[in-house]
């Protein structure tokens, strides 16, 4: 029996899927508008810069020198005076209650000691709950008083007629992102995250839903080949995914200044291969579950670790070795690398072929497994 040609079959399924998806306004909102809104909101939320750390200065000296040190210490904006305390105990209470994260204690006699060339000690008490903030705050205090101490030491050496020793200075030159801003780095990661959530879970649940409602069996008795059915079902999501990426990148460039430095064809290839893996995982999950609820939980079981182990939030280099090994099979990792390296570092196929190859291998094997399982389930 010769049915309609594959092209006709494919077009029919594609038309049906597009109609079904577009008809539900709420789904379209979730698929297109929601990722866009979220990118804009979270683009503003992500900022690793630590400044304005609430700090209390306990000035035990109350001299012109100690007041000058306190003022110059706070001048660069890393620490922000959040309150006053007369004693160390009072200041510690501020830290306990979360009103201050750092206490700088200037001891009695600080000004006189420094003028007389006697050793002095400044105490810093930090709220260590956020180690990053604590490091930055202690760094700011140490740097300031380190410089004060060094220049005092040099003055004293010069006064004693000794030649001061050599000094090596580090001049940083920062490539790609001179202001070290967070959004240009995070927006590509957020885009990859949203694309994953939207495509994987929608595919997984869409198929489970058809199975629950019994419409999958109805379609399967028509002369369509199961493979074409799958391709036709996924095609609209590929289109939606590409539209999403284009929108997110437009928002990223216009609002957050994400640069577009590299080869956009590489980015397109990466996006297509990535969608192949996310849709493939969705399909695989749907073949493993019987209800929409199971599909959904399965989708989450995949997306959550995939996001947190992708390098989007925290660097992969900071993970222990065994977790780094797991990230080798994480498609999100490769796509985030492709996005960031093309957009920010201006790379192309020459540098990114390993990531693209990895995505192709992962996508191919996931899709193949999923298709086989799908055939078995309906066969």
């Amino acid at each position, binding site marked *: 029996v010769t049915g309609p040609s594959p092209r006709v079959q494919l077009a029919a399924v594609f038309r049906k899927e597009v109609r079904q998806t577009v008809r539900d306004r*709420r789904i379209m909102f*979730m698929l297109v508008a*929601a990722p866009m809104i979220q990118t804009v909101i979270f683009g*503003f*939320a*992500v*900022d690793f810069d630590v400044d*304005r750390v609430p700090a209390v200065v306990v000035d035990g000296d109350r001299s012109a020198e100690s007041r000058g040190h306190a003022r110059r210490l706070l001048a660069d904006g890393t620490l922000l005076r959040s309150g006053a305390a007369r004693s160390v105990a009072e200041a510690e209470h501020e830290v306990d209650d*979360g009103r201050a994260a750092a206490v700088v204690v200037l001891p009695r006699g600080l000004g006189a000691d*420094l003028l007389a060339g006697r*050793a*002095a*000690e400044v*105490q810093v*008490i*930090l*709220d*260590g*709950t*956020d*180690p*990053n903030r*604590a490091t930055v705050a202690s760094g700011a205090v140490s740097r300031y008083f380190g410089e*004060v*101490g060094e220049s*005092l030491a040099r003055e004293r*050496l010069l006064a004693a007629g*000794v030649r*001061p*020793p*050599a*000094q*090596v*200075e*580090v*001049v940083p*030159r920062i*490539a790609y*992102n*001179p202001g070290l801003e967070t959004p240009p780095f995070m927006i590509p990661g957020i885009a990859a*995250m949203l694309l994953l959530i*939207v495509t994987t*879970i929608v595919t997984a649940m869409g198929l489970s839903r058809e199975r629950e409602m019994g419409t999958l069996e109805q379609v399967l008795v028509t002369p369509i080949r199961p493979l074409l059915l799958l391709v036709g079902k996924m095609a609209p999501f590929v289109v939606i995914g590409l539209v999403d990426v284009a929108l997110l990148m437009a928002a990223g460039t216009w609002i957050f200044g994400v640069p577009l430095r590299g080869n956009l064809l590489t980015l397109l290839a990466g996006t297509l291969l990535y969608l192949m893996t996310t849709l493939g995982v969705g399909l695989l999950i749907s073949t493993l579950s019987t*209800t*929409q609820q*199971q599909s*959904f*939980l*399965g989708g989450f*079981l995949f997306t959550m*670790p995939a996001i*947190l182990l992708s390098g989007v*939030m925290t*660097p992969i*280099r*900071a*993970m222990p070795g065994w*977790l780094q090994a797991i990230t080798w099979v994480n498609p999100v990792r490769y796509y985030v690398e492709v996005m960031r390296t093309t957009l920010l*570092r201006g790379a192309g196929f020459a*540098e990114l072929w390993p990531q693209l190859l990895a995505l192709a291998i992962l996508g191919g094997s996931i899709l193949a497994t999923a298709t086989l399982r799908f055939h078995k389930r309906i066969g």
Partner: protein
Amino acid sequence: MTPKERIRRSLVRIGAMAAKETLHIQRDPRTLYLALGMPVVMLFLFGYGVSFDLERIPLAVADRDRTEESRALVDAVTAARELERVAEVPAERADELFRRNRALAVLVVPEGYGRDVARGERTRVQLLVDGADSVSANQVLAKVDALVRAETRRLSGPGLADRAPPLRVQVWTRYNPEGRSALFMVPGLAAYVLAISAVLLTALTIAGEWERGSMEQLFAAPVGRLEIVLGKLLPYVVLGMIELQLVLAFGTVAFDLPVRGSAVLLFSIGFFFLAGMLGQGLLISVVAKNQLVATQAGALSALLPSLLLSGMVFPIGNMPLPLQLLSRIVPARYFVHALRGLLLKGNGLDVLWPDLVALVAFVVVIVGLATARFQRRLA
């Protein structure tokens, strides 16, 4: 009927609803295992995997001087395990290394470095940094700066190094003296995984009843709307409390998380947080009427806000004002703050009451909304 009798009967009906929902849960043990197992597995993975502390940062070296002094500097910088020399390259090839993700920075030692050091002059070395990832870039800058400073001190000979610096800064870090990322991240992660699993558990319950057509039957039964909502919530609250204990027990055992505050307060705050997140899932379920829409709404409203607006990773104080206001309706924000205060600082109700009040208010509003929307649906 006396008011007392009315309350008793209402409680019986809520109990009946809860028993029905418990049967639903029992019938699908796969979902139950996922719900109980998922948070613990996630906490395990993320507790180890989510860290910003880079070790063995790949550093390339461009030594243009090639003298004994320049080699000594390079050795001093790469002697500790923190920075690892990966390549010896001319500075022009830095871009290529960055694009291929082989190095995070290139240390350029200029010609004449050895001569300047020998003469005791001020001299400069350049550090090219891949600024795409601002967090990693900042770490590289800070580490290289500290190591070069140490080298300067060594160069200045025993004369200056042995002399006690006139100004010392003594840093005392409270609550987390070793600055472990895990102590900061695990309370946040606990809130995150609980938020997600709670919303997911309930997001599908009512949407599923609508899709299966059993909702009309439920309405025909002599049960009030609020009774349905509370009855549906009850078993999940019990599940959630078990989850909370599992997660906290796991955190204390695997990551040495201290519990310095009161356990009673911990569990009451946890109770209201869970009730709020379960209520949010229920509200989504009531509004969506369709499992696919419900999951997307649940995912987008729980997954990303709990991650990005809760203060778990990104400090809320750094966000623009509109987002700071938006974060006030994210329950995870209060729970993360309360958990850190309770576990690490040993705060009590005197400090944490605003968090508790906010969480209770969220529960009341969300259950009220779910009930109200429920009534309007039927009319």
